[in-house]
């Protein structure tokens, strides 16, 4: 399900890009050494092992509460989209209301028809009035995707949203998200090199308190799961990570 990268006509270079720069401190100690993360339209991965601070970096970028502190500057978007590992479904709201939740939290009048269209776009038409408990894990993450799309955010932050899914559902969700977020600036936090290589044109490795660029895979995203180059590069990247660990 390869789809071409679409860049908004005037987004590159003209506008100051979203990003984060400086140092991240946790309890007065350096969590991430001085860095500059400047985001381009399209997908950027933050790849690193658990505890490396990648989620912290993402939370700071999104302006979310967190224990660490940024000494530096942040350029966030007016509207931010957020997807986490947990689908964050509110059990008492219907699927449709869950899609509109961010709008209602923001105090905007949600457009029901748009919410329905988005549910259809993620393959869930007809389930609008169900409760989230009646849905499978994969379906719930689709609702979360529709909810994220609903606010029409310029900057999308993804905190391992696919890592709790089974492998087949994960690949489907990756493709779906890639299609739906086309043209936006997306930051994906992941510990899975294959996921980063498959989806992201820019990859940052986070290890040993350092944020450094890693070589992405050339070619059209998302890569086919059976792409030999994807498999080989994934294996090489894993080796690198294991060696330095």
């Amino acid at each position, binding site marked *: 399900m390869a789809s071409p990268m679409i860049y908004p006509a005037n987004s590159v270079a003209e506008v100051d890009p979203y990003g984060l720069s400086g140092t991240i401190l946790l309890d007065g100690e350096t969590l991430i050494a001085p860095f500059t993360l400047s985001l381009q339209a399209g997908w950027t991965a933050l790849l690193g092992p658990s505890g490396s601070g990648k989620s912290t970096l993402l939370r700071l970028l999104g302006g979310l*509460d967190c224990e660490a502190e940024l000494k530096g500057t942040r350029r966030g978007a007016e509207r931010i989209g957020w997807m*986490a590992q947990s689908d*964050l479904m509110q059990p*008492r709201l219907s699927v449709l209301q869950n899609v509109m939740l961010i709008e209602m*939290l*923001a105090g905007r009048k949600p457009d029901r028809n748009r919410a329905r269209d988005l549910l259809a776009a993620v393959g869930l038409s007809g389930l609008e009035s169900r409760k989230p408990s009646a849905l499978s894990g994969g379906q719930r993450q689709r609702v979360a995707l529709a909810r994220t799309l609903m606010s029409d955010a310029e900057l999308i932050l993804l905190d391992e949203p696919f890592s709790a899914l089974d492998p087949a559902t994960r690949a489907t969700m990756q493709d779906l998200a890639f299609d739906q977020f086309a043209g936006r600036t997306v930051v994906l936090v992941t510990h899975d090199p294959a996921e980063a290589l498959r989806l992201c044109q820019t990859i940052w490795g986070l290890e040993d308190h350092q944020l450094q660029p890693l070589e992405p895979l050339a070619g059209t995203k998302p890569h086919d799961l059976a792409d030999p180059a994807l498999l080989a590069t994934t294996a090489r990247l894993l080796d690198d990570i294991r060696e330095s660990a």
Partner: protein
Amino acid sequence: MRKLMIPLALIALWQGGVSAGLQPAFILPGPLEVAGTLWTDRALLLTHSLITLEEVAYGFVIGALLGVGTAILMMLSPIVRLNLRPVLNASQAIPVFVLAPILTLWFGYGLAPKIIMTILLVFFPIASGLLDGMLATPQQSLDMARIAKASRWRELIWLRFPHALPQLAASIRIAITYAPTGAVIGEWIGASKGLGYLMLMANARSRIALMFAALVVIVAMTLLLHRLADRLLRRWLSA
């Protein structure tokens, strides 16, 4: 039927003890005598029950509304929360019994002191239960509020209050069993009506069976209210 085995056994034991003459009937009437009084004095018991029920209804509704309102206010304003919480906690150290004479002194012998007594018993569990539930909303859910730049009010309406509903329901179930106690305490101190008054009057006239009958009615009322609340909460809050 199986659920009633132990209560029935206890009642049988009670009747057995009384029949064996362990205690004279003017100190401990047997269940049969109490049941007989329940029937013969049913009009009297009903009249006084309705008074107590009225106090309970007013007290519970007002207390619950005040409790929910206070919890919401404390949730919306950290300053109010910071200042009010210690006061509320400290207030629980005051045995409400000692307040009853004061309330009677201030508000007279009518319904008001009984209703206020009930409010005092109902208010705290509901306010603290709801507040604790709202404060325990998972950070992950609150992230969505932060992302949406939601106001405290919208965060409360869409995330915190729904999250606290099971805890609110549990608090309501507890509070409704406290409510009749509040009304009866009020009636003990000074009243001319109500089941608490009836108990005192029966005691003074050595009508111990009537006293027990009133007690049975209070217990039945409490159980019934609890059952009713449980039903309604299940239907409306599914909690």
